[in-house]
């Protein structure tokens, strides 16, 4: 029994954090919101160059040959920077599911961009910048997309019609795409939450009222501590879910649902508390906090919200 990451896994995640600190500052996220694309080709090229996008593709197909345990800290780091565009859909599902198909080579290289259309969803996130869309039994190309005005400018929503179909049965190491996305989103939500806490803690250290930094007041301390508590206790379940997925454990669906339920609730609580700590500035377009909050609100409802996943856990635990 060993519940830790290897030095290589940690160093790779730290490398990604460093890359994103330089290449994906809040100003970049704001730019892609405002230019209407919700995606940065330059950032995409950096992620491709580092091997992040191809982490879950087999080495034989030109990928990094990693498992979900290798990828989970990367999803978290992507969340810390609120990386815009279809990076999770591409990396966690399209690349591993299509690696050995005719679509594989250009997806692994990052030359083409894929997103995911989950069954029953009226909207497809990122369709405006995607070359192909993966569905439950086919791949769609040359489709038409219409803006559906999503709240998060780094995760634009579209309705999609038409397109050319190619049969495909996506499967990610025994997981269906929905569950692979629930797992990746859980880690991404934890990263978002960590960043929101950092931003609010920094604000609480410098913003003064009554002649003191507001972070010295217990009411503020306790709001922040409670948010941190939820985030910290969502981490181990998320890493365990990644391990379960990596070995195809019998419990992997239950474990992924537990992770997504806890991470979604932690992120929502964190968004509320950190906005509250900001006071009036937290309710402005100008504050960077919104880039992370809105991404949280989008992802907490995507690929199953906390209620959906809690009930799925119930199905295993109370049966």
């Amino acid at each position, binding site marked *: *029994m*060993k*519940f*830790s*990451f*290897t030095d290589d896994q940690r160093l790779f995640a730290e490398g990604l954090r460093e890359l994103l600190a330089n290449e994906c500052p809040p100003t970049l996220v704001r730019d892609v919101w405002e230019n209407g694309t919700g995606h940065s080709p330059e950032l995409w090229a950096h992620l491709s160059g580092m091997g992040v996008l191809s982490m879950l593709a087999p080495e034989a197909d030109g990928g990094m040959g990693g498992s979900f*345990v290798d990828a989970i800290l990367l999803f978290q780091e992507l969340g810390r920077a609120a990386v815009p565009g279809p990076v999770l859909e591409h990396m966690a599902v399209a690349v591993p599911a299509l690696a050995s198909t005719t679509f594989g080579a250009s997806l692994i290289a990052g030359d083409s961009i894929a997103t995911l259309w989950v069954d029953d969803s009226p909207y497809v996130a990122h369709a405006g910048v995607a070359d192909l869309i993966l569905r439950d039994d086919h791949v769609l190309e040359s489709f038409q997309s219409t803006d559906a005005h999503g709240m998060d400018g780094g995760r634009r929503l579209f309705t999609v019609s038409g397109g050319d179909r190619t049969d495909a049965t996506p499967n990610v190491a025994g997981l269906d795409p929905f569950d692979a996305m629930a797992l990746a989103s859980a880690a991404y939500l934890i990263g978002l939450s960590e960043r929101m*806490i950092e931003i609010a*803690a920094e604000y*609480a*250290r410098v913003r003064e009222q009554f002649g*003191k*930094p507001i*972070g*010295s*007041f*217990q009411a*503020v*301390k*306790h709001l*922040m*501590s*409670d948010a*941190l*508590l939820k985030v*910290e*206790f*969502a*981490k*181990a*379940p998320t*890493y*365990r879910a990644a*391990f*379960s997925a990596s*070995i195809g454990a019998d419990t992997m669906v239950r474990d992924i649902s*537990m992770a997504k*339920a*806890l991470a979604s609730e932690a992120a929502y609580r964190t968004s509320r508390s950190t906005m509250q700590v900001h006071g009036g500035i937290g309710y402005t377009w100008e504050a960077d906090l919104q880039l992370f909050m809105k991404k949280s609100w989008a992802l907490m409802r995507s690929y199953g919200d906390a*209620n959906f996943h*809690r*009930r799925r*856990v*119930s199905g295993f*635990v*109370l049966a």
Partner: protein
Amino acid sequence: MDLRETADESAFRLEARTWLEANVPAEPLPSFDTAEGFARHRQWEKKLYDGRWSAVSWPEQYGGRGADYIKWLIFEEEYYRAGAPGRVNQNGIFLLGPTIMEVGTEAQKERFLPTMASSEIVWGQAWSEPNAGSDLAGIKSKALRDGDDWILNGQKIWASRAVWADWCFGIFRTDPEAERHRGLTFILCPLDLPGITVRPIAQLDGDTGFAEIFFDDVRVPVENTLGEVNKGWGVAMATAGFERGVSLRSPARFSEAVNRLVALWKRLGDKSDTALADAVTDVWMQAEGYRLHTYQTVTGMLEGRPIGAEASLNKIFWSEMDVRIHEIALQIIGPEAERMEGPLERWVDGFLFSLSGPIYAGTNEIQRNIIADRVLQLPKGM
């Protein structure tokens, strides 16, 4: 990362399970906060010690097995699974013991650890005072040096297990000029010395699990000092770290409680009440999350990343979870939850006990301050 047990760990689990199945008393013992229950629990601890199961993570020379923390967690899982008795000497084995191993002299280790492991000496904790609760640094009880002795004077309160314990470990002000955290010393003291009066305090459940201790010119030799003179605060904080962190509240306790809760829900829960099913699942996830978090923390400790102020996160988490588990149980039980004696009394007892969790070992409000100051680096202040 590999969350599967090794062959060695599985063998250890089997050995523990086999021994516990053969030795755990068939009938639950009376509460250790009664005279008879205390004596029976002491006998049980001796039996554990003779099987070398009383302090599995301690070095063999002091009566342990030198087991790593992972094996300790496995032992705890088996211990709770077997429904074995509560640990009457937990103040000693899980709090003071590790502290002595960290800061004690070799002579102190030889003198105190084996009798602690066997519960020949059961330990009580004597830290809080009437005016030093959350503000523990406000301690006023004094120890004045007289030759080779300390002379102790003052009053301690909420001294857990002190009613029947043999010794206590306390913090006393040794430098009257020093203020707050400075000038305090950690002293070990027998409870049967002249000048000591122990006055039991009935808890919410009516048992006397804690007491006041009055010290009136009590003489103890200076060799009973643990750590350096006037550096007792640091020693106490190391002990508190164990208490808030992994050692006192092992995850197995909560895993066992939620498993019982799920069984209770299956037997008595209103299946049409989806909010109730959600609540049960929620605490199941919390207990599972706490277990996973602990395994992660312990792996980190084994790899040289010691637990710090994050221990305060654990303390808030397990204490609030424990209350929640029992609240839901009482909701399921309904009118029977009003009875202190009856078929479901264990849940009612458990509920009352759970309410102490957010208060003792530093209130959860103090823990939130610690997290804010040391983990989130927010400015000090109230």
